C-alpha cells in the first residue's frame, strides 16, 4: 500500500486563493466569461476548448489541478464521459455546466459523480463557491486516510502477517467499534467527524489500491460472497497491514458502483455476445470484455447456476474489466455492464486487468467483470481510497481494449472479439447464474454497487445500476435504451454497442438474466434480440431501487439511467445475452 501525502497540506495556506482550476468548454464566449470569473475569484485558471486536451493536461501531471469545470455538451467528447474519467483517474472534483436545466440531465451529472451542476449562464457568485467542493473532498479523503492510518498504526503493532488475522481482527474489532459510530459508508465521510482520535497530528495517508491490493480485496469479497462482503470481514481476509476498515469500506463502495456500471456494460456485452452468436452462455465473454481483460470466473461463491453460463467469455470479460475502466469511461458503456454479478470476479478482473480469466462460467461464474473492476476502483478513489489500480489500458476506447480474454473458458464463441467495443465486459452478473450481474440490491456501502449478490435476481439490480447509471452506459446503450426507456428490454436496440456484433450472444445471457435482471433492462443489453427470453423477467430497473435501500443513489441512477440507457441495465442486457443460455438460469431477479 502506498501512501500518498495528503493533499490537504497543499491547500492550507491561502485557500481558496490560488486554487487551480481547469475549465473546459467548447464555446469561446462561455469559456472566456468563465475564465474571467475564475480569475476574479483569484483562482489559477487553465482553459481549453477540447476535452481531450483537458484529459491530457490532467493526466500529464497529476497534481496540477484542484478542480475541473466542464461543459456538458462538447463536440469531441461527452461531458459526462470526461466527468467519469476524471473522477476515476484523478479523483478530482468535477463541476458540470450546461444551459440545459432538464432535471434528468442534472441527475445524470450527479450520478456520474459531478460535485455540482451549474446552469448557464453561470453567475459569479456560483463560481465563487466552487472551492467548497475541493475542500469537502479533501476533507473526506483526509478523514479516510487518517482513520486508516490510525488504524493501521494500531494494527501494525499487533499484527504480523502471519498471525495477522487474529491480530487484525482484534484491532479491527476495536476500530470497527469505534468506527461504528461513524457514519456508514453510506454517509459521506464528511459526516464523520471523527478522524480525530487517531490522527490528529498524524499525517493522513492515502491508501492506494494497487493491483495486488485490489486483487486481495476481490478475492476476499469473492470468498465471502458478494452479499456477505462486509468491510470488516474483507479486511480480515485481506490481511493487510495498514489497511483500515474504512479503507476497505470505501473501496467496496466504489467497487460496487463500478460493478454496477459494468453490469450495464456487461449486459451490453452479453448482448453482444449473444448477438455474436455465441452459443454458450458464455456470452459473458461478450467479447467486448476484452477490454477488461479478465473475466473473473465467477467463482463458486457466487451462485451461478449455469455452468454454461460462461458468459463473458471467460476471461475475456474479465479482461475487460481492468482496462475497461478507463476505457469504459470512454463511453463504452459496455464495460459498465459488467455487472458485477460477481463481485469477485470483478475483483479479480480488476486486479488482473489484462488477465483474462476464464470465466468460470461453467460453474457460476460471473463474468462480470471485465471492466467494472477497474473502473470500480476508480470510483473508489473518489471516496478517498485511492485505488492504485488503473485500468490497464489507459482509457482507450474499448475497442482498443484488447480482448484479453482468451475465452479460454468455455465461451468459445463469446466473442473474444471485442465486440464489445466497450471492453466492459458485461459482467453479467448473473448472480445466480453466471452472468448475472449481481444486481444486488443492497447498496450496502451506499455505493449502490450491487455487487454480486449471488442470487441473480437480486443481482440484477445491482448491475444494472452501475452500468446504467452512468452515462457511460448510456452512451452505448443510449441508442438502444432510448427506445425502451422502460424496463422492457428492447432486445434489439438496446445494445447499441458499438462493437457489439455479437449481440446475439448476449441475448443468450439475457434470457437467463432476464429473470434476474429484473431491473435490468434488457434493453441495453440485449442486443440482438436473440434472447428470446430476455424479456421475461426484465424488470424494470426500478427494481433496483427496491433492492438497494441504502444506495438510493444507484438505484435512482439506474432508474434514470435506465431510461436512457437500458432500462434495467441489468436486465435487459443480460437477457439478451442470455439467450443463448445454455442453461443458465439467468438472472432471476431476485427481487
Amino acid at each position, binding site marked *: 500500500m502506498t501512501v500518498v501525502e495528503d493533499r490537504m497540506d497543499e491547500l492550507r495556506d491561502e485557500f481558496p486563493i490560488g486554487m487551480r482550476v481547469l475549465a473546459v468548454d467548447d464555446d469561446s464566449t462561455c469559456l472566456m466569461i468563465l475564465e474571467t470569473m475564475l480569475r476574479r475569484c483569484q483562482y489559477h485558471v487553465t482553459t481549453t476548448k477540447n476535452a481531450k486536451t483537458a484529459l491530457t493536461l490532467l493526466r500529464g501531471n497529476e497534481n496540477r489541478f484542484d478542480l475541473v469545470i466542464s461543459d456538458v*455538451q462538447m463536440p469531441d467528447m461527452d461531458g459526462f464521459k470526461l466527468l467519469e474519467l476524471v473522477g476515476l483517474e484523478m479523483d478530482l472534483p468535477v463541476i458540470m455546466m450546461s444551459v440545459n436545466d432538464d432535471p434528468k440531465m442534472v441527475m445524470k451529472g450527479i450520478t456520474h459523480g459531478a460535485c455540482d451542476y451549474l446552469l448557464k449562464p453561470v453567475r459569479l457568485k456560483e463560481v465563487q463557491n466552487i472551492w467548497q467542493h475541493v475542500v469537502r473532498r479533501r476533507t473526506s479523503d483526509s478523514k479516510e486516510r487518517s482513520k486508516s492510518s490510525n488504524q493501521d498504526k494500531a494494527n501494525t503493532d499487533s499484527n504480523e502477517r502471519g498471525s495477522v488475522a487474529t491480530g487484525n481482527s482484534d484491532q479491527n474489532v476495536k476500530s470497527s467499534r469505534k468506527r461504528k459510530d461513524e457514519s456508514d459508508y453510506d454517509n459521506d465521510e464528511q459526516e464523520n467527524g471523527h478522524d480525530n482520535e487517531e490522527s490528529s497530528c498524524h499525517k493522513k495517508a492515502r491508501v492506494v489500491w494497487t493491483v495486488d491490493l485490489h486483487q486481495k480485496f476481490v478475492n476476499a469479497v469473492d470468498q465471502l460472497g458478494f452479499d456477505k462482503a462486509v468491510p470488516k470481514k474483507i479486511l480480515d481476509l485481506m490481511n493487510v497491514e495498514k489497511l483500515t476498515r474504512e479503507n476497505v469500506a470505501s473501496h467496496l463502495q466504489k467497487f460496487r458502483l463500478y460493478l454496477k456500471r459494468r453490469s450495464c456494460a456487461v449486459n451490453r456485452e452479453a448482448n453482444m455476445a449473444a448477438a455474436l452468436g455465441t452459443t454458450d452462455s458464455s456470452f459473458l465473454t461478450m467479447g467486448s470484455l476484452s477490454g477488461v481483460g479478465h473475466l473473473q470466473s465467477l467463482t463458486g461463491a457466487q451462485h451461478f447456476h449455469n455452468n454454461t453460463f460462461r458468459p463473458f467469455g471467460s476471461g475475456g470479460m474479465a479482461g475487460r474489466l481492468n482496462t475497461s475502466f478507463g476505457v469504459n469511461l470512454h463511453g463504452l458503456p459496455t464495460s459498465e455492464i459488467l455487472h458485477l454479478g460477481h463481485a469477485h470476479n470483478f475483483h479479480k478482473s480488476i486486479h488482473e486487468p489484462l488477465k483474462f480469466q476464464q470465466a468460470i462460467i461453467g460453474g457460476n461464474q460471473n463474468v462480470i467483470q471485465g471492466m467494472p473492476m477497474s473502473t470500480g476502483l476508480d470510483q473508489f478513489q473518489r471516496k478517498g481510497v485511492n485505488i492504485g489500480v488503473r485500468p490497464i489500458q489507459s482509457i482507450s476506447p474499448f475497442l482498443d481494449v484488447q480482448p484479453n480474454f482468451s475465452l479460454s473458458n468455455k465461451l468459445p464463441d463469446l466473442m473474444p472479439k471485442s465486440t464489445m467495443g466497450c471492453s466492459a465486459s458485461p459482467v453479467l452478473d448473473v448472480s445466480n447464474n453466471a452472468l448475472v450481474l449481481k444486481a444486488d440490491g443492497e447498496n450496502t456501502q451506499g455505493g449502490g454497487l450491487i455487487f454480486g449478490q449471488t442470487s441473480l435476481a437480486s443481482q440484477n439490480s445491482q448491475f444494472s445500476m452501475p452500468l446504467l447509471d452512468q452515462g457511460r452506459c448510456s452512451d452505448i446503450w443510449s441508442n438502444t435504451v432510448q427506445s425502451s426507456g422502460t424496463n422492457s428490454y428492447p432486445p434489439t436496440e438496446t445494445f447499441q454497442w458499438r462493437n457489439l456484433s455479437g449481440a446475439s450472444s448476449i441475448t443468450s445471457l439475457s434470457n437467463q438474466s432476464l429473470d434476474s435482471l429484473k431491473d435490468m433492462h434488457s434493453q441495453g443489453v440485449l442486443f440482438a434480440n436473440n434472447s428470446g427470453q430476455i424479456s421475461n423477467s426484465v424488470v424494470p430497473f426500478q427494481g433496483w431501487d427496491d433492492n438497494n435501500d441504502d444506495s438510493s443513489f444507484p438505484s435512482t441512477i439506474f432508474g434514470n439511467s435506465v431510461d436512457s440507457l437500458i432500462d434495467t441495465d441489468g436486465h435487459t442486457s443480460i437477457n439478451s445475452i442470455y439467450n443463448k443460455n445454455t442453461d443458465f438460469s439467468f438472472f432471476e431477479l431476485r427481487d
Partner: protein
Amino acid sequence: MDKIHSRRQVAAIKHSLFDQGYLDEQFIQLEELQDDANPNFVEEIVTLYYRDSSRLISNLDHTLERNPLDFNKLDTIMHQFKGSSSSIGAKKVKAECTLFREYCRTRNGEGCRRSFQQMKKEYATLRKKLETYFQLARQAGPQETAFRPK
C-alpha cells in the same frame, strides 16, 4: 458637459435595451467583471460572441437547407448557440433559441425555419443596438460599469 451628456445617452440606451428585453441580468454580470484590469471586457466578450454566433448561424442556415432536415444536428447547434447567447445575456435571442429547439424536438421543420428567421432578426437588432451602445460608451469614457435596471 459633453461627457455627461454622452454618459446619459449611454445609460439611456442601456436602459432601453433592458426594458425592451434585449438584455438581461447576465449582461450586468459581465459588466461587473469589467474593471481596470479588464476595461473592455464586455465589448471583448460580445465581439467573441459575434464571431461564434456568425459561424453558428451560417451553420444553421446550411443545415436548414438540407432535405430531409437533420433535427438532431439542428438541435445540437442551437444548443450551443443558446449557451453563448445566454452567457452574454441576449434575452430575446435566447428565447427564440428555446422555441427553435422545441420545434426541433417536435420535428416541425416549418416551425424551425420560421423561428430561425425570427431569431436572426432579433440577433441583428441586438447586434446593432449593442454596437451603438459600445460606440457611445467608448466616447463617453469610463463610467459606472454596472447598474441594475429597475
